[in-house]
């Protein structure tokens, strides 16, 4: 990727909505992506990030995970062409991922602990 690409990134038409308060850190999204795209061990179009775990007060803890797409995410364009959802979304055990047109995903992101990643079809 050149500097020009970074200054003028491709327009995003899709969003990956992550309800990360539900992410249990199970890694299914990562391995589903690796298997769908034949990626080597350790690489994936989506990765789980440990959001840490520490006590805040009493039994209240920060304890969570966040799934985030990498540069290798191609939005499962071929798979979606067969009428399926992206493989990370299907296999997410906590069902905390949603994929769709960006405006729809943005509308849905109206609660605490959600985020939308903008994605372009590749």
């Amino acid at each position, binding site marked *: 990727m050149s500097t020009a690409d970074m200054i003028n990134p491709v327009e995003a038409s899709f969003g990956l909505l992550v309800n990360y308060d*539900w992410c*249990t*850190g*199970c*890694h*299914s999204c*990562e*391995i*589903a992506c*690796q*298997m*769908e795209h034949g990626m080597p*061990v*350790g690489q994936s179009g989506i990765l789980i990030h440990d959001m840490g*775990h*520490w*006590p805040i007060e009493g*039994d*209240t*803890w920060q*304890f*969570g*995970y966040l799934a985030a797409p990498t540069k290798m995410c191609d939005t499962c364009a071929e798979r979606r062409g*067969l009428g399926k959802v992206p*493989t990370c979304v*299907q*296999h*997410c*055990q*906590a*069902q905390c991922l949603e994929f769709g047109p960006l405006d729809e995903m943005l509308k849905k992101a109206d609660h605490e602990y959600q985020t939308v990643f903008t994605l372009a079809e590749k």
Partner: protein
Amino acid sequence: MADHGIEGYNNSGVSTQLVGDYQFVDHEKPWRYQEGDLTVTRGSAWSGPGCHDGCGVLLYTDKDGKLVKCEGDPENPYNGGRLCVRCLDVPEVVYHKDRLLYPMKRDPKDRGKDKWERISWEEAVDLVVDKFMDIKEKYGAEAVVFGQGTGRDIAAYITRLCWSFGSPNYVLFLSGCACYLPRVAGFAATAGSFWVADCSQEFADRYDNPQYQVPETMFVWGNYPLRANSDGFYGHWVIDLMKRGMELVVIDPKVTWMSTHSKLHLAIRPGTDAALALGFLNIIINEDLYDHDFVDRWTYGFDELAERVQEYTPERIAEVTWIPEEKIRAAAHILAESKPCTMQWGVAVDMTKEALPASQAIAACFQITGNVDVPGGIIAPPEILNYAGGWGRELCPEETWKKRIGLDKYPLLNFGFQIAQPDELRHAMATGKPYKIHATWLQQNNVLSCMGADPTEQYIGLMNCDFNVSVDLFMTPTIMATSDLVLPAATFTERDGIRVGDGCQRGEVINKVCQVGECKSDMEINLMVGKRFNPEAWPWDNVDDMFSAMLTAQTPFTFKELREKHPVYLPFSYRRYETGLLRGDGQPGFNTPTGRIELWSTFYNNAGMDPLPYFEEPVPGPGSTPELLDEYPLVLTTGARPWSLFHSEHRQVQRMRDLKKECNVYLNAETAEKYGLVDGDWVWVENIYGRCKSKVEVTNLYQDPRVIACDHAWWHPEGDPEKLYDSHDLNVNNLLPGIPGKSGFGSNYKTTLVKLYKVTPEDDTNGPFQRDNYVGQALTDRVAEAVAATKNK
């Protein structure tokens, strides 16, 4: 008596009385269809590799018949298209370079050496039959032991092989059968069948079914379902239910995602679950929080239970369990006041020495609060085949059946349990008493690395045999150390089958989509060998006919019919105790002698056991042997599951190993500092019985500095085969003596006392197993010796 005991549960067809309508799922496509260049086959993932669940999968194969992808089946209500990392990665397992691909034999004098010779299936089967039949003729069929690993898809077929050969010694080499069976027994002895959390798993339309009700609260007790997926319970159902409003109470020494998303987390001292349950009962009964109507009409022995629990005051239980008293009280109120309240429990309950009274006490909490057989409570799942009971017990002649190892010591085994007692069998194999075991058939069983307590005694017992056969997917430390013949088993993608497992049983099939080497399924192997042992017991021409025979005994479907319809949901309804569907005689009530839930168990009483639940301090432990705390100050718990590894499987599977690289011991920062340890240090974890090596991970997830945890079932497939892949160094079972509970059930896998010290270059291995002058850990009273030694100091 036996008619109403667990034997009744096994054989009377009580919980398998499939009356009513089967439920189906609409399929857009047939069970096998084409998608572009790929063929897609629908089926169940049951197992190995992997767990007890049997999720719905779609297997993708290319034009050469090669498996290229495994996906969740979105049409299967069990997992709803989801899948965990292990099944997603199954193609890597199927085509792994280390798979066993053909039968191999080794000269018994070369045990432990990597000197295998490839042979044909014909020669392999002849060898088994010649050796086993010769031993049977010389010493009796009981001299051959049939041992399985964890109870996945194997129980029905290995029990039939064992019993049709004529041996009574079918076994899981797990001390005290400390997985599932104690919980089965605890429930069956009081309520006549096994009960599980109702997560709508009996309905094809799941949470939307109008009969279903979301539990107000789920108690998750000694289990981390998100990772464990135990006993037919798909762990993330908990998340589905939380999204629908269910609250959690989590009983776990560890802080977890679930505990931090729960209403209440009780960080219990490992091994004190029975005490906590008895404390709950004390509060629920004394504060009059129980369901009077249900208790009056449907339970037996309530007054005796009420009297028994008086000694378990909340103050005392707080001291015993290390849980603050106000939390215990709050949890008891939540349990009694949530309508409905359900419970998902795990092996932590079984893996305590007195597991039966623990199970009984926990069960009673949900029984006296009226949560039995109600929507969103706890339910008895209908079955096609009683999974815990085995298949074909009648095939073993009565005179040999009486020679089952452990019967004389543990009379409870006479009450419908159809296994040999594992600890007595381990001693018998090592000592030759009461009679010598001459051969073993180990199937899906890596006993020296995983389930077996006191691995040295297990090893000696196996080495004492004239002939050991193993059936497995991969070479294992057990095979390398002790086997003379190894047969290559198929994964679930390489075989046909039916899912008749634990927990929720569905009408589901496993469909073969590929072939690897000369591997055969466990079912095909057992049919082939069984026909040679005892042709009448195995009358089927092929496995599909065998599956049809199993299915049509209880359902209207043959194997091929079920394949089209899969998944089929069995007839199910709630409050079957009111409609007579829980008893063989069709009378209302539960399948117990009194027809009621027996809080005071007639069954245990008749077996010479305490009919009421109780708690005993784990030994060794801070409550039972405080003298040992100077030398061994830490309470160790073992066996919590990571995401990507199932017991001793997956260590050689790169994608899975990448998610969990090494065997760890988990300490909090205070403990680490005290011992001068940092992340990544290799330490010996040692107790009065033995030691294992583990890599330190400093964590705040064990908040109590007195508690540490160690991973289980580790070995290094990348290591030296002739050093048994480091299994004897890494195996935490070296610390576990295998002393079962008074009934022969339960064993302390989850708690012992240990110390830690660094591994040094001079002291970095346990070396090979020692055979000379070894006395089994459970055969010596090392606790008394150790305690006495502290007094002499």
